[in-house]
């Protein structure tokens, strides 16, 4: 039965890798079809970091957005002295940071450091721009979730610093 053979082969190739699973669970990629997600996967750079390794530093020109595939990352804000770091957030598997870099090349506002051995999927702005140029439907389906994400961050940042705890989380726009 050639049909059975082909469906078997197709399912073999469609089997989701851990990376695809992590990406598919993100709200940012929620609207994408499996095929479109594969396109995203094709532009992803998988990076591995040792515990304590800096992923990017405040002040660097931001080029890529990161999704944590495994491990843990802390987002810190360097003090004026540059010595003491104020921790803003701790992110785990499936969390996303540096997403502003998808939109422009403004400097990173905080530093990201891997706290354990970490694997992160990086999506670079030039690659992403090129992808949505070639596949506009991907761009359309990502714009709304991306806007929602940024709106949520903005709303958090604009919240009056009434309770001291939320102040830190508010600056989690990396």
């Amino acid at each position, binding site marked *: 039965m050639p049909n059975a053979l082909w469906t078997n082969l197709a399912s073999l190739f469609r089997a989701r890798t851990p990376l695809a699973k992590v990406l598919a669970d993100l709200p940012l990629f929620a609207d994408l079809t499996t095929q479109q997600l594969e396109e995203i996967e094709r532009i992803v750079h998988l990076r591995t970091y040792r515990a304590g390794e800096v992923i990017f530093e405040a002040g660097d*020109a931001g080029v890529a957005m990161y999704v944590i595939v495994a491990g843990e990352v802390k987002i810190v804000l360097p003090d004026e002295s540059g010595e003491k770091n104020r921790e803003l957030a701790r992110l785990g598997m499936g969390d996303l940071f540096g997403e502003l870099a998808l939109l422009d090349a403004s400097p990173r506002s905080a530093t990201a450091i891997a706290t354990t051995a970490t694997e992160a999927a990086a999506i670079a702005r030039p690659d992403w721009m090129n992808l949505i140029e070639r596949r506009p439907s991907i761009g359309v389906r990502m714009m709304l979730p991306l806007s929602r994400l940024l709106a949520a961050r903005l709303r958090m940042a604009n919240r009056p610093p009434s309770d001291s705890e939320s102040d830190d989380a508010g600056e989690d726009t990396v």
Partner: protein
Amino acid sequence: MNAVEKARRNVWWPIVLLALVVGLVLYLVRGSLSPLVLSAIVAYLLNPLVDIGERHALPRWLTITLLYVVIGGLIVLAIFYLMPLLFDQLHEIQQRLKTLWPLLPGYLDAIVEWVNARIPAFRSFIEEPQLGSRIVNTAQEWLTRTLEHTPALLTKALSNLVVVLSYFVMVPFIAFFLLRDGRQFKRGLIALVPNRYFEATLSVIAGVGESVGRYLRGVLLESLTLGLMATIGLLIIGLKAAIVVGFVAGFMNLIPYLGSIAGVVIGCLVALSTGGNVIGVVIVFAVVQFIDNWFVQPIILSRSVRLHPLVIFLAVVFGGTYGGLLGMVLAVPLSGAFVVTVRTLREGLRPPVYSSASAG
């Protein structure tokens, strides 16, 4: 100053080392580099078209194959229709020259006589009788030899079949894979980059790719426009061999400034030998150069590099010394690509900005 910052200060030397190693390797394999360079140029030129195809849901391999079919068809058409025309026109010029030459010595002798009559001091220089005919004879011998050998030269170039065939096979082959899998190659290379340079490398590669592609496409498009304008202009003034001259001018324009100069010189020679309109030729190329400088270049090459004439001259000389005619044609686009690369590298590797205003 903490350790991270210290490490950052030394960011430049591994890059310089890498550049040196890459440069050395390129120097060692320079002999087999030109098909690669040509393939890369072809890939840069065609990539936007392949992207457009992908936008309309055409697989990359299909778009590339279609493009190859179209380009191959154009080349075959050119060989079948344009080549005989070119040879006819060359032949005609040759014939005209043969009838014109015998008249020249008389003119030259008359000029010498005229000069001698008015400036007696000149006579001591020009003692020999019939100087005019001797000059003309030497020039004629040289020119007829060259012209008679032009078809032979072309056939000789073509008869070096191994080289030509290897180019016709290798360049499309390499370019095909560069076009189809270029992004995968790039991703594989970036995977080797240490984390510290990851983002800088991303932005540099993207910047270089874009500017070099834009530059190469610009140069080619400009040469094409110039060649077309020149051909149309020469056809209007009714010059014999207008297509040949326009074609040569367009091709030579890959070396900046040379297109119009070569066009004027060859065009005037043709006009002189065929009784054509010499002033018309000069006017055509003046107008073409004017349009090129003021309208075509600002539009096509506006956001691209502009090389100093001296740099262009030196690049062409070096290119000619090390790569022959192909080297001369490739020299300027390559120097342009080099300048764009260095410029983008410098932009990409500028020290990070620490400003309190941007934090938060």
